[in-house]
């Protein structure tokens, strides 16, 4: 802007800084600390000052600000996307606000741009309303259902690249037309066209996101169905072995009667110890107390427990389940419960498989419905003599050595969402116990 006076320059820098700051920081407010705010503000002021003298640097200016936001918050995808959304909204809203301002004050755009006092008056109206608008949008974003991290990464990438392209086209369009000195009506028509395009693409993108989200849900439901089918077939198998036993049982009683009739008590004694005892034991050992599962009426819990216990028995781990009272419902999102228990039991299986002596492997699970809460306890042996309990929550360190048990930090990030769930860990005499308490 050659030939610009100081007040104009000052206004330019101020408005540029403010619009950047408000549009990008408001949506990211919850990830920013005071220190981060200050650093970001400094970067923006520096950028805006350079930009005031070299208008061609607008692109670089926006790019650097957006990336700074991502780096500062350490959530590059999430925060740069939010920053870009904020920026596009502010550009669009700038146009809307200018129209409104024109309508109420009766000044035309050119007058406003050339008059500093009017410009400041406009900004006095523009920035507070922009801030409120962004706060509202941030509130709405918070209320949206959050998909899973794994589902959400590619989506985040797609959304971000789309937004980057859009914002650059928008900025290019405006600056190019401005520099070339296009007539105002063509500029506004162009802008309207572009906004229409943006709106349509957004709707398409939104529909795609909804579909991906639904698809993920259906996949989970399908998996659950699969587990339940396996469970049913297992039950059927158990029933048939039980029927087989009933048949054996009659034979056993007949032979017992034979010994008693013939008063062969010594033979009876050996027969009992040799043949009957193993039969009773084998019936007790036979599969992991599957009948206990029938007490769980909360399908996601039943499904994950069944699936994981099957996996444990396949790893030659003696697995038991205790469900004394029926469990109808648990006050936690099914998907979160499934993830937490999946991690707990995976860790327990890992700890077991590193024990060479198969007779020392065990996995005990108990689901308790007591008073106002549900409690799930998972109990397994551990190889190491002592465990630093406080280090197991840190990434990469677990009771099973480095590089395993990555799941525990994930559990923490899930638990943050709930105020009715607590996790307890105990380690006594080689026995490791995880307890999850969920208030109704």
């Amino acid at each position, binding site marked *: 802007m050659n030939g610009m006076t100081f007040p104009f320059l000052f206004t330019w820098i101020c408005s540029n800084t403010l619009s950047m700051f408000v549009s990008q920081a408001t949506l990211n407010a919850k990830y920013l600390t005071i220190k981060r705010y200050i650093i970001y503000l400094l970067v923006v002021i520096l950028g805006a000052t350079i930009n005031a003298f070299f208008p061609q640097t607008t692109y670089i200016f926006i790019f650097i600000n957006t990336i700074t936001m991502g780096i500062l918050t350490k959530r590059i995808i999430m925060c740069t996307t939010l920053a870009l959304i904020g920026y596009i909204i502010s550009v669009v809203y700038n146009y809307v606000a200018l129209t409104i301002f024109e309508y109420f004050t009766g000044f035309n755009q050119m007058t406003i741009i050339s008059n500093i006092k009017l410009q400041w008056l406009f900004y006095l109206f523009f920035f507070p309303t922009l801030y409120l608008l962004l706060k509202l949008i941030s509130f709405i974003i918070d209320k949206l259902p959050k998909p899973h991290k794994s589902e959400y990464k590619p989506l985040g990438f797609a959304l971000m690249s789309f937004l980057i392209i859009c914002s650059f086209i928008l900025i290019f369009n405006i600056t190019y037309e401005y520099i070339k000195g296009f007539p105002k009506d063509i500029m506004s028509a162009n802008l309207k066209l572009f906004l229409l395009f943006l709106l349509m693409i957004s709707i398409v993108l939104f529909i795609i996101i909804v579909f991906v989200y639904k698809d993920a849900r259906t996949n989970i439901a399908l998996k659950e169905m699969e587990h339940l089918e396996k469970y049913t077939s297992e039950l059927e198998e158990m029933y048939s072995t039980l029927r087989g036993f009933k048949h054996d049982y009659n034979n056993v009683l007949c032979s017992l009667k034979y010994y008693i009739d013939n008063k062969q008590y010594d033979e009876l004694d050996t027969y009992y110890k040799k043949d009957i005892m193993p039969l009773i034991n084998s019936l007790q050992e036979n599969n992991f107390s599957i009948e206990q599962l029938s007490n769980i009426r909360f399908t996601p819990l039943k499904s994950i427990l069944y699936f994981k216990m099957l996996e444990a028995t396949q790893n030659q781990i003696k697995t038991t389940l*205790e469900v004394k009272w029926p469990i109808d419902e648990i006050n936690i999102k099914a998907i979160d419960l499934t993830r937490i228990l999946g991690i707990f039991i995976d860790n327990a299986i890992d700890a077991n498989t590193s024990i060479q002596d198969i007779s020392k492997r065990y996995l005990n699970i108990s689901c308790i419905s007591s008073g106002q809460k549900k409690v799930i306890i998972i109990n397994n042996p551990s190889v190491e003599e002592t465990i*630093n309990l*406080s280090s197991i929550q840190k990434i990469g360190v677990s009771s099973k050595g480095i590089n395993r048990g990555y799941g525990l930090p994930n559990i923490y990030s899930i638990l943050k969402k709930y105020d009715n769930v607590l996790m307890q*860990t105990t*380690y006594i005499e080689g026995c490791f116990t995880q307890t999850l308490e969920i208030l109704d």
Partner: protein
Amino acid sequence: MINIYICEDDSNQLQHLNQTIEHIISTKKYPMSVECYSTSPSIILDTLTSNPNKNIGLYFLDIDLNADIDGFDLAMKIRELDPRGFIVFVTTHSELLHLTFEYLIEPLGYIIKDSSLDIHNQIEKCMSNAATKYQILNKNSGKQVISFSTFGTEYIFEPMSLIYITVSCIPHTLEICSDDKLIQCRGTINSTVKQLPDFFLQISRDTIINVFSVVEYDKNANKVVLKNGTEFDVPRRKYNIIKKMQNNK
């Protein structure tokens, strides 16, 4: 003195249990006496509620009682009346719900009614266990304990076994680390620090440590290392306080 209560629905087995227990008391000279034995859980409860002397109890309970409540419910009721009592479940393998019992009742032990196992031996073990615990309990009756409650479940700690208490990354939640436990409970640092003995020191806005668990100072890095390997940042001026507190005892 320990009062013994026995509940078993099969009267033959009840007689057998009672005789075995009486026999063990007389041979081992334990400070115990059989207060009540019955096939009905309600009689046990009535005796317990009407009993004016607050002796600690040792309870042998069958799980399958053929009554309106089972041995487990009976144990829950006994826990309310005699929170420190010793409970022993007499049961078959198939009825045993180890983790569930452990969490809700904390029984002293189990007697497995299995023809292959010697019942007399099991009973004797439980009784000697109860006798030892009873002695320890009497000796420590004056000692202070610290308890934290998590949704109604009480976790009791001996003060020396605590290592640190810190604010969790989960909102409104504290993490309490002891020698063998890491528990989460609702609470604030400020209210917790008040109920702790004087060898606990608040080193920052969100952490309290047991000064006797400090094993290493790193004055240059402003750090302390605790006995389980956990590290905490400590402001420089707190070092001298920690040292002074350690020397005081």
